[in-house]
């Protein structure tokens, strides 16, 4: 077992265990914090996979943005005075059965499939290439994303404002 493997298992454990807590723990604030760990773990996995820039973006946007947003959401939709901000769960049994089967199918299929594996290329910095691609090949999508953000901005503002 190489160091690479150990790091992988570490991040994998962080990701999955905290994700498990995210969806099971009753206290919402705790959940939100576990979500933070999950994102962090995922970012680590990105690094392992050689996606340095994406990992950075993951940390900045998810850990720095979305989780905070979520926390705001939690705060705004609960009375702060209440000591334990908790959430209930519903339809555990059917959900467990359904999602369990689905997960089974999903993992079994994915893990057992024969993927087109090529010898892995050496890990190179990706930031520059990504930047070039974003303004050339994927320029149009990049622009579209801008519009998405604009729409999200307008939409969210329109809903949230008085």
């Amino acid at each position, binding site marked *: 077992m190489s160091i690479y493997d150990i790091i992988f298992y570490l991040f994998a454990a962080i990701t999955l265990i905290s994700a498990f807590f995210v969806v099971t723990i009753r206290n919402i604030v705790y959940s939100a914090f576990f979500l933070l760990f999950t994102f962090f773990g995922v970012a680590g996995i990105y690094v392992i996979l050689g996606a340095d820039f994406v990992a950075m973006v993951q940390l900045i946007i998810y850990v720095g943005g979305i989780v905070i947003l979520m926390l705001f959401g939690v705060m705004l939709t609960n009375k702060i005075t209440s000591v334990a901000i908790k959430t209930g769960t*519903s*339809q555990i049994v*059917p*959900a467990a059965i*359904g*999602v369990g*089967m*689905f997960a089974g*199918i999903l993992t079994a299929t994915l893990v057992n499939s024969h993927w087109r594996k090529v010898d892995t290329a050496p890990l190179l910095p990706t930031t520059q290439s990504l930047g070039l691609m974003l303004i050339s090949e994927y320029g149009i999508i990049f622009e579209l994303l801008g519009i998405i953000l604009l729409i999200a901005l307008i939409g969210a503002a329109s809903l949230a404002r008085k």
Partner: protein
Amino acid sequence: MTEFNLIQIAVAILFLPLVGFAFVLFFGKKIKNAYLFEISIITVTFILTAVLLFNKLSWFPDKNIVSEFSWIRIQNLAVLGNISIDLGFLLDNLSVIMIFTVALISMLVHIFSIAYMKGDRLYNRYFAYLGLFTFSMSGIVLTHNILMMYIFWELVGISSYLLIGFWYEKKSASDAGKKAFLVNRIGDIGMFSGIMLIFNTYHTFTFDKIFTQMAAGTLPFNSEFWLTVTGLLLFCGAVGKSAQFPLHVWLPDAMEGPTPVSALIHAATMVAAGVFLVCRIYPILTGNALFIIAVIGALSAVIPATIALTQNDIKKVLAYSTVSQLGYMVMALGVGAYKFAFFHLITHAFFKACLFLGSGSVIHAMHHEQDITKMGGLKKKLPLTYATFLIASLALSGIPLTSGFLSKDGILQGTFAFASLTGHWLFPAAGFAVAMLTAFYMFRLIILTFHGEPKNKEKYDHAHESPFVMAMPLVVLSTLSIFFWYTPNPVNADAGWFLSKWIKSPVLSVPQNARYSFMKTDVVSSVSKEGIADINNSTTVEGKEIVYSEAYTEAMHHAHYPAMFLSLLVAALGIVFAFIFYYWKKISADKLAADIEPLYKLSFNKWYFDEIYNATAVAFTMGSSRFLAWFDMNIVDGAVNGVATVTRWTSSFTGKFDSVIVDGLVNLVAYFSGFIGLILRRFQTGKVQTYLVLVVFSLVIILYLFKTF
């Protein structure tokens, strides 16, 4: 007079009454005495028939005058080429004599009705209906094809319906009309089936053409059996119309109509149409068919005669007597005594009409009292009626010097000869028994009505002889019941002009081996070899007759006197018994009735025919009709109703959930189908997480299915 003139006259005879009908029907309301128009029309018609009769018999005694035109043409058929359904007249001696009789009686009844129906609310319409009847009846008589005969057959049925139910406000009258029509329809269905068979075989309806083709060897389905069936099916029509057993039940009920109508339709003319039909189709009747006809005739002669013994309604007695006499004629036809049957048809028409009109006169005098047990002693009050009634009764009983004696004797002679050749002695036995019964009940009727003490003093006191218009027809008809109109010899009709010159039995078309053995041509030697009649489209030469075997001729000859004496004897016996019972009262009729109560009851209750029919056929039809209606509403409607779903939805939407609709089978199906819709709704809980769980489950199912493909 040319043939064409005769046809013209026939056309006039046929349509004049229709004109009268239409005129009176449409203008009866506006013109006060519209009925006079009808009466003058019928008088003219009668005169025309007399002219026709005279000229036909004088100038063309042996010729069938035919005139026809194509009514419907079906052209260019694949196999048959053109088919033409023709309408046309057939003037032979049979039809001119018959039409004369019809017109004469019709006229007399018209005249009689002037007084009899006086004051009725629908006086004019009554005469209109009579006109319609005369038209229809003339059609039956004059036509030259079976389809047209069927058409007029139905039309007389309708006029009979209208006239029986003339006093429609009386439930019994409208019931009787309906019953008459429906019972007749049963016979007509048989007749129509026969017509279908005929048409299917010969592709024509014209009698002559059918006979010609049959003589040439074409048979229905190439089988003599089916020929017999055809004959019998056609005879079904006669069974209905002539009130033969077992369809005789309508005739007594038909007495609900006005009495002159009974005289005209239900005694003299329409009911005789059945016999006339058998006469017309005689050439196609096989031996087997004739035998069955004879049996039906015999039964129809005997059963009503026994019923007539105990009836107390004057018209009912006469009605059963009519059925019995018609049975006589049918039996005569069945045993081969063709001429005598027709002879009896004519004589019977006159004296029975006379009897009915006479009874009408009595009823009129007694203020619509019909029960003979409440009459009596009317001889003094109504001498003319009594005299004519007596003459007619004598004729009916078969007493010499009357026309009835001649014709009845001929029939008995025929049965006798038939029995001696074939050994069926029950026919003459039935004939003589009926002769005795007839004499008995007729004189019972006369004694109770005209003799003895009046039972209802009040009505008796008010009784008075009928006016001239009612008396005149009685006189005319009773005169016609005397022998000399038909033959110079009061004891033997064979020599008379009626039987020897005017009426000829037809040539048989039936294959030789299907006939009675005594009618086979090949056993004949003495009579000239008769081929097939020489027939062309417009006219037919008559003069060829049924060729009876020598043995038959001989048997007839031998039977003449025995039959005559025997018939005289039984008639006399019958009369004597009547006197013993009712005039001298040597034996108490009531006591006898009590002694043989079951038999008496059987007779008095008309052999329970109506009860049996009501309990079986009528009940079955009504029952199945009710059941099917229920079935239709609940099961068919329900089950078909969109596999019941529709019903449920519809009902729930219209808010009227008809509990009937969902009963039974449907209930289950409906519930199930509605359930599907509800199940589907059950998924739409409004909880988005439930939806998503469902999506996950569906995904799992889809993926699972794909893995197994």
